[in-house]
Structure formats: C-alpha cells, structure tokens
C-alpha cells in the first residue's frame, strides 16, 4: 500500500519527490546506462577486430567482391563463368540455396499435408503407413538421410556410358549417376503466345471466382469454379500451341564423350538434397497438420452435419479454416528450418551459398570475417522474409472473431 501511495504522489506532483525516487527518471537512467554499456561493448569489439586484423596483416574490406572469381560452378541458374566476379558467384550460390529452399518447402508441404491427413485416415493400412513414415524420418538425423540419398541411392546408379549403351543416340529419359536427364522444351518463333494464353487463363479463373462468389451471395446459386478454371488453363494454351503451328521443340540428351550432352539435367546432388530436405521436413509438417485438425473439437463436425453440410463441405468450410490457425505458426518454423538445413548441402557437394561463398570464396580471398558475416546475414534475411510472408498469410487465413 505504501508503495502505491508513493507512486501516486510522484505522479501528481513530481517536483516534490527527488529524482532518485521517481520511477520514470530511474527507469530512464538505467535504460540509458544499458544502451551505453551495449554500445561500448560493440565498439570495443569492433575496434578490437580491426586492430587484430591489421596487426595480423590480414586483408579486410569488401573490395574482393569485384575481383575475378576464377573458379567454375557445377550448377548455375544465372550465366556464370570463371571470368565472373565474386559478387556473381555469391548470387549463384544464393540462388542455388533459394531454389532448393523454395522447391523443398513446396514439396514438403504437399507430402506433409497428405501424410498428416493419412494419419487420421480410418483405413488401417494408410494410417499405419503414415505413422511409420513419420516415426522413421522424423527420428533419423537429416545429415544421415542426405548421405543415404546421395551415397546409398543415387551414386550406385549406372554411369552414363553404361546407361546410354551407344554414343550419339538420343534418349528421352535417363537416370544415371551424373543426374536425371529429361527432354528440354525449346521455344521457337511464336511460342510467347502460349505464355500469354496461360496468363489469360489464370486471370479468367480469378475473375470467374470473384463473379461466382458474388452470385452465390446474392442468389445462392453455385458455380463449378475449379473445374472451369482448370479447363481454361488446359484448353487455352493448347489452342495457342495449335494456332501458332506447334512452336515447341524437344531437345534430347545423348552420350557424347564422357557425359550426356543436351536435354534437361537435374544433378544428383540437387536431387539428394531436395529428397532429404523435403521428406525429413514433411514428417514434421505431417504432425503439425494432424495436431491442427485434432485441435478442432468434434462438436464442430457434428454441428456442421446437423446443419446438413456434406462431409466434403464440412472439412472445407468448417474444419480446415479452424485448423489452419493452429497449423500456420509452427509451419512457419518448419519452413525456416528447411531453408537453414539446406546449408548441409556442403556435405554432399551441392553448390549452395555455404559451399560456394562460405567455402570456395572464403578460401580464395581469405577474408573469413566478411564472408561468414555476409553468409549469416543472408540466412537471417531469408528467414525474416519467410516469416514476414507467413505472418501475412496467417493474418489472411486466421478466423475473424466476431
């Protein structure tokens, strides 16, 4: 009581109470002291690092970014040669990390949802299979899984020479220890119309959806939006393809010298990393999905049935929207984990950011402090971007409480 009284006096008439006893002033002083202490620590650390680097005669600064890299990279999504700069090598690594992260998240989410739903299935076989999947993949370290896919599965495939039999013969599909070879689609004159057709179909789908929703609210009549949209997405590009005189050619791989040349190649390192990351993360996502659905009380389903909604509509309109708000936040963590775990690529020789930039570039330039800091900042930025997107998505799907 006494303390409370003191606070009130201080608030009413601060002039009479000495600053020592004013909680606001005291709080301000301590916070200022903390800031000064933190700033002093950072400053002493920074000067210490500068001094030590200078005394040890180690080069520092970011000038190396403009220098010629002088090494080659196995998988590049943007044009890159050994004459490119270290900066470009950095972007090659960054893109390689991002591509495996994005595709991994996509695949893991699909597998995770399927397995999560399968665990709740009433079918004994399906349910047990899903349980075994989750328990096995969730409990084996990811690094071991990556090594398993890379060394035990992909590297014992036949060599291209054994797989191709004869040099020069075109092959539509080949999986060997140098990668997965598929035909590559080569656009010719007029192929851009097909692209426009796809865009047009997507736009039409979107507007039909809006129109159908509006009509349903006004009149109660339903319209098969999904089927119409899918139909458009198939029919329009095919029409464009035929109208423009089939301007797409297929390029096949064939054995020339040591390796298969041509076609569309997916390297075994990429496949192993993607398989490992997606299957491992999917086992966690499956559990999150299961938990989310179980979190919706049984009464909701019963109430929905009592209203006369069919099981399909019940899950789509009642259960999933409520489950989503439980699923999304932990799902975000799994997406972050997947992206960060992709740095294990270094163990199986996939040229990701850590391997190219934190490995080769670090060694060629010797500037460990700069390179490692940048690598850490990049992962931080990727994670923050993913979280920002997922938070936005979460706010979209979360229930509007009335």
């Amino acid at each position, binding site marked *: 009581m006494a303390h409370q009284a003191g606070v009130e006096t201080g608030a009413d008439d601060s002039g009479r109470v000495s600053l020592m006893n004013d909680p606001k002033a005291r709080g301000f002083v301590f916070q200022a002291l903390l800031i000064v202490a933190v700033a002093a620590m*950072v400053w002493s*650390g*920074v*000067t*210490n*690092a*500068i001094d*030590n*680097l200078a*005394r*040890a*005669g*180690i*080069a*520092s*600064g*970011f*000038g190396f970014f403009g220098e010629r890299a*002088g*090494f*080659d*990279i*196995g998988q590049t999504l943007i044009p890159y040669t*050994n004459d490119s700069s270290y900066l470009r090598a950095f972007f090659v690594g960054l893109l390689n990390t991002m591509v495996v992260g994005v595709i991994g998240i996509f695949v893991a989410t699909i597998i995770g949802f399927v397995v999560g739903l399968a665990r709740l299935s009433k079918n004994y076989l399906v349910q047990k299979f899903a349980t075994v999947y989750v328990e096995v993949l969730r409990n084996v370290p990811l690094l071991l899984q990556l090594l398993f896919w890379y*060394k035990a599965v992909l*590297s*014992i495939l036949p*060599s291209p020479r054994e797989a191709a039999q004869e040099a020069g013969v075109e092959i539509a599909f080949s999986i060997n*220890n*140098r990668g997965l070879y598929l035909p590559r689609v080569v656009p010719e004159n007029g192929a851009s119309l097909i692209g426009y057709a796809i865009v047009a179909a997507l736009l039409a789908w979107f507007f039909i959806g809006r129109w159908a929703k509006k009509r349903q609210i006004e009149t109660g009549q339903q319209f098969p939006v999904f089927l119409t949209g899918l139909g458009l997405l198939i029919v329009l590009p095919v029409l464009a393809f035929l109208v423009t005189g089939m301007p797409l050619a297929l390029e096949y791989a064939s054995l*020339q*010298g*040591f*390796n298969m*040349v041509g076609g569309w190649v997916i390297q*075994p*390192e990429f496949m192993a990393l993607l398989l490992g990351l997606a299957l491992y993360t999917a086992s966690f996502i499956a559990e999150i999905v299961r938990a989310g659905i179980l979190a919706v009380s049984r009464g909701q389903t019963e109430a929905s049935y009592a209203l006369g909604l069919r099981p399909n509509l019940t899950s789509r309109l009642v259960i999933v929207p409520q489950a989503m708000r439980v699923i999304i936040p932990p799902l975000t963590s799994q997406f972050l984990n997947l992206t960060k775990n992709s740095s294990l690529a*270094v*163990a*199986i*020789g996939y*040229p990701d950011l850590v*391997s190219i930039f934190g*490995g*080769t570039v*670090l*060694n*060629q330039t*010797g500037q*460990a*402090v*700069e390179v*490692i*800091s*940048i690598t*850490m*900042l990049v992962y931080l930025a990727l994670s923050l971007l993913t979280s920002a997107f997922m938070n936005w998505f979460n706010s979209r799907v979360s229930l509007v409480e009335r």
Partner: protein
Amino acid sequence: MNKKILSAVVGAAAVAGMGAAPASAATLDDVKAKGFVQCGVSTGLAGFSAPNDAGDWSGIDVDLCRGVAAAVFGDAQAVKFSPLSAKERFTALQSGEIDVLSRNTTWTMSRDTQLGLNFAGVNYYDGQGFMVREALGVSSALQLSGASVCVQTGTTTELNLTDYFKANDMTYNPVVFEKLEEVNAAYDANRCDVYTTDQSGLYSIRLGLSAPDDHMVLPEVISKEPLGPVVRQGDDQWFNIVKWVHNAMLNAEEMGISSENVDEMMNSTDPNVMRLLGKEGTFGEGIGLGNDWAFNVIKMVGNYGEVFERNVGDSTPLGIARGVNALWSKGGLQYAPPIR
C-alpha cells in the same frame, strides 16, 4: 575508412575469438610453456600426413613437425596433431590454434601476403595432375573435354583446373566437395571421370581406391605446387626455427649425415659438419634453442633423404621417385642455404 567500419561492424561476432588470439606473442615461449608443438596436418593423405592403425601420425609433413619438436625439446614425440580440412587450415593457424601448419599447402603469393602468414620453405615440389579410369581410354589431359571433374574446395587445385581447361578451350563439369574423403568416395563411385589434385596426392589417393589398378595418373603436370610449412607472420624467431629445421635436414643429407651415423659424425673435423651439429659456433642459441638442435633433428627424425624415402620413396607403396625433389647437387631443386 567507411569500408573498414563496415567490415568491422559485421565482423563483431568474430571478435571474442580474435581478441584472445596471441597475434604476435612469442610462439616459442608458448610452445615451451605447454610442452609440445601443435601441428596442423591433413585429415589423412598417405605419405604426407596420415595416422596408422595405432593412431600414430607419419608422413613427410608430420616429420617436419617432429623435427621442430626435436629441435625445441629434444623429443620428436612432443607434438600434438590437429587434422584440418583445406578450408579450415589457415584460420586455425591465424587464430593461434596451431603453431605450425604442415599440410601439403601450396606456397602462393596471395597466401603469403594477404593472410598474415609466412611460408617457411618448400619440403615437397609438386605439380597438379589428373587421374582417370583406364577403361576410359584416355592418354592425355587434352582429351578430357566434357568430363566431370572431382575436386576439393579451398585449394589452388580448383583454380588451376579452371585455368587449364580455359587455356585449352575445353569444357568440364566441376563436382566440388569440402573434405578429401568425400572427393575420394565420389570419384570411387564414378560420380566423376577425372580426379585432380597434386600428383603426389593422386598416387596416395589411388592406393585407397577400391581397385587401384583400374586407375592411372595422366602424364601432364599443369601447375607448380611448392608445398611447405606455414607459420604466423610477425614472429620471426619461430619462423626462423621452422625454416632452419627444414634447412638442417637438407644440409644433413648433403653432408651425408643420417640418423644412423650422426653419433659418429660428432667426431668429424669437417667445420661444416661441426657447425651443423653444434660443436662449433652458437647457431642454436641464435634461434633461441640449444646448440644441439640440429643434432636432435637428425638423430630423432633423420635427414631429408631418409624422411622422403621412409614416407613416399621406392620402398613404400607410393613409390614416388625423387625427381625434382632430389638435392640440387643431384639434379633436383632442394637447396638449403649453408649454416655458417
């Protein structure tokens, strides 16, 4: 200035470690205080630095560290080894984790001048080569266009490879790993057609493959790879010790002093021999050691020729000829300044 601040701000996390590193302290005093030499070696390259089945390290690079220990302590066993990947090695030396790096490391200008390190000599003159399967029917590196090439990251090898293929207008597909064992496994599993590293390394790695006789080393040598021990810059005394241990082993071979006859040689009246073995002058004291420093090195480790023969020479499975690593007086490149 701006650049400097930026580099330091992002580097703040690395500060604690840097601050603790004895950047310019006297390494000799530290080594004497702890009682052993901490030596950075490879994770296992037969002939250069590899542990045997009893866990004892041996190889040319290992013997250099043993030589340093013999010179400092009179005990060639006073060494502890830190196996390092190509990527880790310079950081380990810069941070003071190891006292000397003796890990088949190529002496290049950028490494010598930009990393805060000094190369203390060349204990093996090497060059980069290629290894392929005999079944490929390749007889020259110039036929390798289009091949997949296995290579270890963080090495000069990676750059030489790029330069060679570029200069000869050939293409290749690099498959890059961080650890030597991973490169070996990938090549053995036929992930690549070609394995490239220093030629001595290729001979050593070939022995570890599942079928060594199916593989051959191509004749081309595409680069100069002078391999040698490395120390931190800024400690001239320690730099001198490592440099002169290597030179003493070379001079001993030149004078015909070996671990077997060094005791008799103590009676020699040849002033060159007397200076080397510490009977004349105070050369040992000049580098902060006892005058019997070279005697201990030769007695406990041997001269350069013995070390070479024992680790990589004809009597070993590697069977590497002396070639350019013979003494200068026998047509090779190994040449040590005189002790006087």
